[in-house]
């Protein structure tokens, strides 16, 4: 695999579609952005930099992601809010294992009812992207966030 302009476009499309899915609140579609054995992880930079394994969310495989979606849509009580993702340009490389390694800056704004938008989560996606059934999917997606303190709770995926 080499980073042809077409492939770069396809990766950019993947990020755009991922952000749109979350910002639109189409959570049921979210697990399909991952390979069947994909790993989704939201981790504080503090832990990531020190190789501490704890995550805020760590989901291995699509079934676990589906459970998370059930959790956020029907079991966890929380105030409703909108998310808006601003995703930067990916830095891409093809790794030895023929997957695409991507690192991408992101910022997520949160808007609660009766409130102005606020900066909610800022960090970097550190991702591994691979083809599954002819489509680009995340084999690994680490959301490594800089802001030490989560403003109260985190419900929806980043």
């Amino acid at each position, binding site marked *: 695999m080499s980073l042809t302009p077409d492939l770069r476009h396809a990766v950019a499309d993947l990020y755009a579609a991922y952000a749109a899915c979350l910002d639109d609140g189409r959570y049921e579609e979210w697990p399909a952005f991952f390979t069947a054995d994909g790993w989704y992880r939201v981790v504080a930079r503090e832990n990531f930099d020190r190789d501490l394994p*704890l995550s805020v969310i*760590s989901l291995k495989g699509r079934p676990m992601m589906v459970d998370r979606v059930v959790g956020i849509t029907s079991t*966890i009580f929380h105030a409703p809010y909108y998310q808006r993702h601003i995703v930067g340009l990916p830095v891409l490389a093809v790794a030895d294992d023929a997957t695409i390694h991507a690192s991408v800056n992101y910022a997520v704004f949160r808007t609660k009812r009766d409130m102005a938008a606020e900066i909610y989560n800022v960090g970097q996606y550190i991702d591994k992207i691979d083809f599954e059934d002819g489509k680009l999917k995340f084999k690994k997606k680490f959301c490594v966030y800089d802001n030490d303190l989560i403003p109260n709770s985190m419900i929806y995926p980043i």
Partner: protein
Amino acid sequence: MSANGQAASDGVTRPAWRDEGSSRIPSAVYTDRSIYDRELERIFYGPHWSYVGLEIEVPEAGCFKRTSVGERSVIMIRNRKGEINVLENRCAHRAMRFCQERTGQVKTLVCPYHQWNYNHDGKLLGVPFRNGVKGNGGMPDDFRLEDNGLNRLQVAVRNGVVFACFDSAVEPLEDYLGEDILASFDRTFDGRELVLLGYSRQRIPGNWKLMMENIKDPYHPGLLHTWFVTFGLWRADNDSRLRMDRHHRHAAMISRRSSQVTGNVAEGVTSFRANMTLNEPLLLDIVHEPWWGDDTVCMTTVFPNVIFQQQVNSLSTRQIIPAGPGSFDFVWTHFGFADDDAEMTERRLRQANLFGPAGFVSADDGEVIEFSQDGLVQDKAFATMCELDGRGVGPTEHMVTETLIRGMYRYWREVMEL
């Protein structure tokens, strides 16, 4: 002065309690600045032990961790003898909060402003230009290094857990905890070597005591938290017992998981989902550990600032750092044991999905605390109602009770004289 009480000559608002009891807590207790300031003085800086960390966070000489006791920044640091000190992060020269890194390892502590230099015990080692330059300036003759060290707190270490206190009159930690709470503490921290798994930090816009109440409230988990009810982890019909110290300021909620749901617990509890199953059963892959005995859950609240969590295979300390009457930081430190195999570590990390700022059964606790604070702020004349199982205070063999909350406020009233 607030709408709900009189400011006395000491400037502290007198909350309008309905009676001598502690089952109706007035809004001002959660929202009033003068009351909060007295809490800092009498509770956080008074004769109470505050949790500051785990010994494994500072494994070697010179390793430090910055944290807080109340609103005061402190540094937990290990000295060359292997002892742990807790030093106030406030330079003895001109007050600078000199330590800004969260963790690190240093030969000495140096305040960058004028390079005053302290050892791991907080002793001042030297100051630049003490004897002046070319015969000019310098410190007065009566300046003594010994008089200008860092503020050094009382420290208690028990089985790898570190507590600190500003007040030298504090009783020994074991007496402070009392027999029953010590037993639940020692159940987890029995001297085995711990392993640090990592941190989660959240800022919750609510009064710090609301978090203590939340973990002293065995009524809500089986109602608010669908996962707890549906998968039997915490339910009103589980075998359980509640214990307190003799002052009723600390508590232990101990319970056993059950797989059978009794009728009246499922009835009318809208969060119970009879048909809910997990797509990934590994999320609740619970493996019994010998040290548990029959109990699967033990939540210990140690007043004023820490909760020790054992929820099946997930272990954490949860530290409260107050930030004004309406906000606190909540710091989770997850850990395991040095003799855990890789599978157990993975299991603890997986079950951490239930606990923390995004946890299936704890994200909503932060939310309800925020909205409770909103309600208290909006109605200054309100008093909460904590009368499940009566108005008294005492241990129970069930969890349909708010006795632990009443216990904490009974103590709070004594120590606050409000």
